[in-house]
């Protein structure tokens, strides 16, 4: 070996060592990050800085679309990120298809050769072949090294270096590019796996959040629906007597056609002269009057535990003893108490109506009977009515019809239940359709003074006189007596 040969070998060895050093540096740089773009970009810039490869790009395989997509480029006017290369097209596409590297030295002249053949074929066969394909890269590329990036023999992308000069890359360049491409492949694969895992975590989080939202939406929907139901049932409540409403909504009373015989006290009431009044009054005023009357009467019925069966115009049907009963006697007494309070209330209402200008005074007639009736849901499957029927009801109605204005007429059956507490006067005998014998009736005049229900309070109102008397509230008896005496003296 002569001197110059030794020198040549020495410099080759130096160059190899330098290359290995650079490759190690680049490899350690790209392994520092898990960011795909950063890895790709770092690699391409390093190739230019250390090895003078001016134009390079990295493409990754898009599994779902079956194409290669440019993820990083270096040394081009346009970065061309996202440009696509079909598998099997061009140097890069063929490298991807065959999973083998390719080094081209004179692409330009080969293309021109191919183009001339193409023109020949086209003019001979009169066939139109495909248009020229647009590929990312230099417009006048001559030399190119394209290397498949493989992980466990699976293609993940292509690494390409090119130049517009003819025959620029030799075997040793090819080797360096291959080593760097392999390094890039494993770094990219690591990053890809990491990113995939991160993405899965994110998706999992998202799914979690969606589920949570769905749950809270569901909760909201349920609470909205519940709210709607509450509102609806509140509205419905007004169409039912509170006892019936409670029974239905608590589930004690099934909403189906079902009736039973039960001992009840039935109350009927209507307003004498109301029908004539309807002909004279404006509907709005009539409505207001009727609403006020029925509202006040209902309050009293509810207060005494009565079940308001129905309103028929101005008439009211209330019964005691279903769905809840306190006992036959107690039910009857409650009913009579209710009737007495209603009369009192009516007296008060008449006062206010008079002030409003209803000169014709409205008087109520009331009838009460205690006895067996059939109670429950009547009607069709679609429209049920919780009501009471039977001779007892007819009798109460007849009693009401026979009562004098502002009087309460009760049957003997009721009388027997309440006579200890209620003062009654024997009244006429009443005959009822369907009953072969006449019914003895009694007129209620008030509570017995020994009754716990007896009240010394007095509240009366007649045209020209309103009286509210409560002895417990009077502090100065003398003054009260003086006031009444004055009223008496003026009346005479």
């Amino acid at each position: 070996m002569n001197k110059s040969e030794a020198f040549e070998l020495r410099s080759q060895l130096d160059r190899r060592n330098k290359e290995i050093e650079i490759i190690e540096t680049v490899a350690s740089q790209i392994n520092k990050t898990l960011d795909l773009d950063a890895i790709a970009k770092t690699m391409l810039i390093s190739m230019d800085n250390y090895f003078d490869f001016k134009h390079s790009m990295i493409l990754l395989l898009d599994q779902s679309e079956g194409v290669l997509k440019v993820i990083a480029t270096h040394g081009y006017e346009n970065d061309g990120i996202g440009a696509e290369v079909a598998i099997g097209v061009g140097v890069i596409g063929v490298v991807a298809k065959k999973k083998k590297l390719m080094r081209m030295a004179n692409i330009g002249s080969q293309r021109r050769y191919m183009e001339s053949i193409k023109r020949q074929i086209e003019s001979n066969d009169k066939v139109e072949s495909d248009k020229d394909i647009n590929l990312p890269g230099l417009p006048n590329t001559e030399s190119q090294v394209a290397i498949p990036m493989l992980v466990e023999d699976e293609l993940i992308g292509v690494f390409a270096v090119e130049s517009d000069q003819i025959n620029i890359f030799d075997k040793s360049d090819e080797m360096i590019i291959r080593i760097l491409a392999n390094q890039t492949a494993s770094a990219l694969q690591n990053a890809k796996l990491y990113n995939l895992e991160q993405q899965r975590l994110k998706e999992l989080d998202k799914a979690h959040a969606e589920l949570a939202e769905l749950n809270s939406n569901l909760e909201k929907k349920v609470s909205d629906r519940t709210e709607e139901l509450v509102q609806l049932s509140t509205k419905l409540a007004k169409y039912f007597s509170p006892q019936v409403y409670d029974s239905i909504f608590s589930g004690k009373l099934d909403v189906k056609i079902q009736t039973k015989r039960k001992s009840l006290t039935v109350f009927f009431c209507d307003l004498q002269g109301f029908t004539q009044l309807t002909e004279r009054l404006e509907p709005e005023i009539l409505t207001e009057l009727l609403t006020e009357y029925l509202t006040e009467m209902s309050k009293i019925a509810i207060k005494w535990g009565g079940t308001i069966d129905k309103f028929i115009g101005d008439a009211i049907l209330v019964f005691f003893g279903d769905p809840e009963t306190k006992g036959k006697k107690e039910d009857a007494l409650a009913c009579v108490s209710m009737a007495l309070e209603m009369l009192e209330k009516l007296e008060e209402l008449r006062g206010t109506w008079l002030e409003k200008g209803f000169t014709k005074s409205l008087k109520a007639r009331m009838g009460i009977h205690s006895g067996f009736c059939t109670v429950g849901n009547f009607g069709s499957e679609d429209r049920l009515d919780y009501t009471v029927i039977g001779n007892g009801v007819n009798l109460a109605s007849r009693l009401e019809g026979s009562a004098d204005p502002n009087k309460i007429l009760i049957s003997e059956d009721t009388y027997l239940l309440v006579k200890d507490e209620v003062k009654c006067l024997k009244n006429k005998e009443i005959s009822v359709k369907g009953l072969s014998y006449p019914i003895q009736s009694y007129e209620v005049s008030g509570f017995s003074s020994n009754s716990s229900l007896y009240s010394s309070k007095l509240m009366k109102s007649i045209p020209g006189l309103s009286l509210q008397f409560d002895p417990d509230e009077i502090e100065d008896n003398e003054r009260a007596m003086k006031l009444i005496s004055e009223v008496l003296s003026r009346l005479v």
Partner: protein
Amino acid sequence: MIEDQHLPALEGMFPSWITTSSNGGEPNTTVISQIWFVSETEVALSFQFFNKTKKNISQNPYAFATIVNPASFDMYNLELEYNRTENDGDLFDEMDMKLEAIASMSGMSGIFELKGADIYNVLSINKIN
């Protein structure tokens, strides 16, 4: 036989000439894009179409080629003898890939197909002075 100095002439940078002869002794010279280096004693020609060269070789296996080194413009004459045709393997793949790459760029995928790599023994190589 083939040495480092000859290799640049086998890269396809400059076209090469190949001359064959029919059984009756009628010569035919044609220009081809590349003669491929296979080993020190072998080169390859791409077989894409059934042409005159192919026909002549089937009758008379001897051929004569001229290659050019694009860096030095040195020219070499080679005496060749047809040996075999390969339809697979690394050499075939390399030739096939390059053909496909260029063809697909021009929208001619599938029209150009490498039928085989025709391997020739190199009998002699001489620089033309």
